[in-house]
């Protein structure tokens, strides 16, 4: 994968999460309708994005340290296994996060965003990037150097990956939330809300399989 394509993919994955009504924008719209305020929509996006960022960052950080400490083959297969396993789990067990409460503050909304993203396995799709980055010295995501410097570099790249991903999430979620709030309302959801979680689960499995054979 070329460098530029890699970053673009990360960004688009963020957009995909931003697109999913169950990952935040719908909550922002709901809060906006309740307070009858566009500002309320925008205000909600910040903690939602923060929750998403933390969820994704945790996975990336764990992956970076695992990649630094463990043999490459082990990490590679573990990552593929996790993707396939989690994807299958999401396919067969459609459990949703138990959450009650519309009246939530900043941290409540952050926690909500974190839980939703984590249950979705949002950060898992970044695993192949972290793992691939370790061997791909030509890539901007590369982490070829041994020792302290390498770990430092990897962390820097990791955060950049999380940042680019979250940027995709924020831009998409904000755009859709504002459009739905101001223009079209939520009526389209009952027919237009494709089960993106199901698609995501299938994509995780597919990515895991590709990682296995490459």
């Amino acid at each position, binding site marked *: 994968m070329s460098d530029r394509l890699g970053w673009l993919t990360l960004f688009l994955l963020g957009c995909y999460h931003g697109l999913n*009504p*169950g990952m935040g924008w*719908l*909550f922002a*719209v*709901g*809060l906006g*309708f*309740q307070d009858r305020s566009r500002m309320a929509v925008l205000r909600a996006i910040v903690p939602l994005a923060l929750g998403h960022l933390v969820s994704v960052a945790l996975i990336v950080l764990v992956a970076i340290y695992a990649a630094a400490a463990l043999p490459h083959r082990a990490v590679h297969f573990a990552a593929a296994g996790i993707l396939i396993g989690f994807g299958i789990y999401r*396919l067969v*067990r*459609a*459990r*949703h*996060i*138990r*959450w*009650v*409460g*519309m*009246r*939530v503050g900043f941290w409540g909304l952050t926690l*909500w965003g974190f839980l939703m993203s984590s249950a979705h396995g949002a950060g898992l799709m970044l695993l192949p990037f972290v793992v691939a980055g370790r061997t791909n010295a030509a890539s901007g995501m590369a982490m070829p150097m041994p020792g302290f410097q390498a770990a430092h570099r990897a962390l820097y790249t990791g955060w950049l990956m999380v940042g680019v991903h979250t940027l995709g999430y924020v831009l998409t979620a904000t755009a859709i939330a504002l459009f739905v709030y101001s223009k079209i*309302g*939520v*009526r389209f*959801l*009952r*027919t237009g*809300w*494709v*089960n993106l*979680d*199901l698609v995501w689960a299938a994509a995780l499995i597919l990515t895991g399989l590709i990682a296995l054979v490459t």
Partner: protein
Amino acid sequence: MQLLKPDPTFYASPKDAIKAPPETVAYVALLSATANGVPDRLAVVDTDSTSQRYAQTIGSVALPKIGDEVHHFGWNACSAALCPFSPHPHVERRYLIVPGLRSSRIHIIDTKPDPSQPRIVRVIEPEELIKRTGYTRPHTVHCGPDAIYISALGNADGDGPGGIFMMDCDTFDIIGPWEKDRGSQYLAYDFWWHLNRDVMITSEWGTPKMIEDGLNPEMLLAGKYGHHLHFWDLKSRRQKQSIDLGAEQQMVLELRPSHDPNNEWGFAGVVVSLKDLSSSIWLWHRENGEWTATKVIEIPAEPADPEHLPDLLKGFAAVPPLLSDIDLSVDDRYLYASCWGTGEMRQYDVSDPFNPKLIGSVRIGGIVKRTPHPAKPAEPLAGGPQMVEISRDGRRVYFTNSLYRAWDDQFYPDGVGNWMVKLNVGDDGKIAFDEKFFVEFDPAYRVHQVRLQGGDASSDSYCFS
């Protein structure tokens, strides 16, 4: 099974839900007419007016044991699945959760693939319910944002406190009791919520011991039945406020909050006032952050010859309306009130909820009047308007006639009957009996709650307006 698109019966707002297509079947709870008779049933009645078998029972399923006393029931999932804080709209509205009010046994009944041939897929025994919750006598079922919520009248000994427990909406396992701090609440009956405000409201009937052997006149006259409304924080599960409607207001039953999530008001029905045997409907609403309740409707008792009254009422020379159920149309415009004693179904225009206007009334049955149905004008009817259900578009109103077996026998000692009828609501809002819809069930059964295919006016909650 996950769906690729949301269940087509879910609507984000009440405004959308009133555009739903008409129901083609209704599910009806049939309880054995005698205590140790036949097993109860869930019957399927054809409500498609173009069908050959319109107003006939086209299927049913018998419960596995006798003595359940089926009463209220509800769906596994509903429009609340589109709520933004708990989005999971790719589940199916498919299973009916059918508790036995007397047995405390809970049945999970699958209405697919053939809606006319429901099948029992799981039975939760009373021992399991007691072990997990301490509660018994499960009553109201509501599909909530995070679980199925079910109210219960009491504990294993038949005493209080009653309360609410939760059921996992995917596995149907009983999770446990809902309350973290019930405060002053002891009696239980109905509940519903203002989802967007994180508020739950609960009402009060009596403990199992106070109701299962019939209405206890001493307890009633002493004002021992429920007369409070409780307001809870849905998130922290704590009682926040309790309103005493006055000890003379006996039995606060059905709760009907506005379907519009931006509103913070709703109606509560009170069965009988000790002062004058009237029934009343109260409006709860929020004022400066505090909940208050205002009596907005009073339905008087009707004078009657003691000769025509059951023993319980002879001394009063009057027949009380015994308001047993109320139902609010999805557009929050019309409130229907079942006067089970006088045999009257009333229709109020509640466009201004503080000033309801009585705009319609039909008579059928009644302790004294025994008004027949227009389809069979020569047949006097026992029982009266009771469980009432409104279609989502507000054009059809169905109701049945049994209250609760032990109480039926006190107020209709010569038999309560077993019928279900339907009103059509005209463009102008006027109500009239559908003369083609008069269902008389097998006399081995009595008839309680009706649920309409795809949802109805008391099944779904919405988070958008």
